[in-house]
């Protein structure tokens, strides 16, 4: 299993998927940093120019805007992580079968379960490291250049949020391996991108339904979250990040969850990943190569 994990790890590195993604990520962080810097400078100027009596209220408003800016940064990060995970893993089994690269490997003394688990761990570990790097970079930029727009974050909330955010790749890798073990690379890619998009739209719809008190919209959002909980995990992370800060994040924002944070959400995600993986193992073990 560890040999396959190592091979998956190397595959992402050597095929230059990861180095290119890293360069683009750094470019994005730089851009985000510049935008934050100028937004902070402009906010600071506004604060200096207003009546001192209104300063406290204005500061509070800026904190909320800052948290929105942070959420936007993380939202796009989440999107990039999702796409990178899909692109890196979608052909991990189907592509190998199509190219016959898997043939000499599966005739070695390893079970197909080991192959799938190795793929899951190899991709999972690397993408988790990448996700945490991305997450901390956005937080760092907000803290360093945020000025009056700096979100009110505690270390424990960053830790909790970071840990939940680190689970995002696993939510995608499990179904990617499952679909990759039953359909071709291209079809697997289509299914995953549609599911991922559905999850995002579902999240918006749920939040909109919550604001408008529309049960039908909320239910649509819940169903999409159950089918593919990637977006739900992001919202849960955002809620954890806000925690019990003095300047709570804007509850009407499309980036947050409609309900209160629930550990049940994480349990659902863990069960979801496990079940999809087991299904993948079962399908992969029975199929012809």
């Amino acid at each position, binding site marked *: 299993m560890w*040999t396959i994990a190592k091979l998956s790890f190397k595959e992402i590195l*050597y095929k230059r998927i990861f180095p290119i993604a890293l360069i683009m990520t750094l470019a994005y962080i730089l851009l985000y940093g510049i935008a934050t810097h100028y937004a902070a400078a402009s906010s600071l100027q506004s604060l200096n120019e207003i009546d001192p009596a209104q300063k406290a209220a204005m500061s509070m408003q800026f904190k909320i805007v800052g948290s929105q800016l942070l959420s936007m940064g993380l939202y796009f990060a989440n999107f990039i992580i999702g796409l990178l995970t899909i692109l890196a893993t979608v052909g991990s089994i189907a592509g190998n079968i199509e190219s016959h690269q898997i043939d000499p490997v599966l005739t070695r003394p390893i079970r197909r379960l080991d192959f799938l688990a190795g793929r899951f761990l190899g991709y999972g570990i690397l993408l988790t490291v990448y996700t945490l790097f991305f997450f901390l970079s956005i937080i760092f930029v907000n803290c360093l250049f945020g000025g009056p727009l700096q979100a009110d974050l505690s270390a424990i909330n960053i830790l909790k949020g970071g840990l939940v955010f680190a689970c995002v790749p696993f939510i995608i890798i499990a179904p990617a391996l499952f679909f990759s073990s039953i359909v071709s690379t291209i079809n697997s890619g289509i299914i995953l991108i549609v599911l991922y998009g559905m999850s995002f739209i579902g999240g918006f719809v749920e939040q909109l339904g919550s604001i408008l008190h529309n049960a039908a919209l909320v239910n649509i959002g819940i169903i999409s979250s159950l089918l593919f909980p990637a977006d739900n995990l992001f919202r849960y992370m955002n809620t954890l990040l806000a925690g019990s800060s003095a300047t709570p994040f804007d509850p009407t924002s499309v980036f947050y969850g409609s309900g209160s944070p629930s550990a049940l959400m994480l349990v659902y995600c863990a069960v979801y990943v496990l079940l999809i993986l087991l299904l993948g193992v079962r399908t992969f073990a029975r199929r012809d*190569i």
Partner: protein
Amino acid sequence: MTDLAIQTEALSKQYNGKGGCQNITLQVPKGVVYGFIGPNGAGKSTFVRTLLGLLKPTGGKAELLGKPLGDLEARRRIGYLPELFRYPDWLTGLQLLHTHADLLGLKSSLRPQHFTTLLEKVGLNGREKEKIAKYSKGMQQRIGLACALLGDPELIFLDEPTSALDPLGRMEVRSLLARLKQEGRTVFLNSHLLQEIETVCDQVAIIDQGKLITQGDWRKLCRFQNRYKLIASGLGREVLSGLPYVIHAELCQKFEPEAGTALKAEWQIEVENAEELPSLVRTLSDHGIGVYELTPLEPHLEEIFLYWMNRKEPEDVDHR
């Protein structure tokens, strides 16, 4: 402990009841180079892939090295070079060997010596640090061969092992096969190249349309075992057809008579039983026919293959 490296009993792999291979019952003894031949689409690769666990059988059973299909311990002692050899091209040849050595659980301390020997065997010494992406097709087949031989397997499946090699490479593989045979390893050789099989294999199985046609020592698989080249003078078809021993006779060529010599001709004859040859020569002599040469003709695998391919019904297969 079984003396068979491969044993199958009515092994089938079909797709919706069609194609693939059907009811293949085969016994491959240990320590032989066994040829598996058949036309394109006969089901050869399907059979091999089923044995190796890449395809799930739809019927029958099989054992490799005395263990049921899929047994991990048996797989540790098996090597495989696929027909469509493709390896991660972002690895170097050496990294590929390390990856497969990891999968086999080979000790790190044993690897350098083992790898050097293997790379020498397949003619890739000095090229192992290059990326596989830079290898030619022949070199990729060679590194695949090295992978198949990793860990000194007892049973090696080679699916068209020389398809991408030049004549020199083919010769090297042939001598490698001979060496493997000397070392007591069993090689299951799947190939279209009958000359290659003829050179290195003692036993073959012929498969067509997914069914086993025949198997055994290929020299004994033909009906025309007792064939001889006969050079004689004064011999005509009427004489040969009158002889009870000769079941088939064919005039091959007539030789231009030199001054003072008789008109000679070369015939190819087939007799029922080799024991009848002295009587045949005596009878010909009694008829005043001069016998200059009577030489046994060795059958060629190609003839045997064509013979079995042209038969409409598969014969009872000798399962011994």
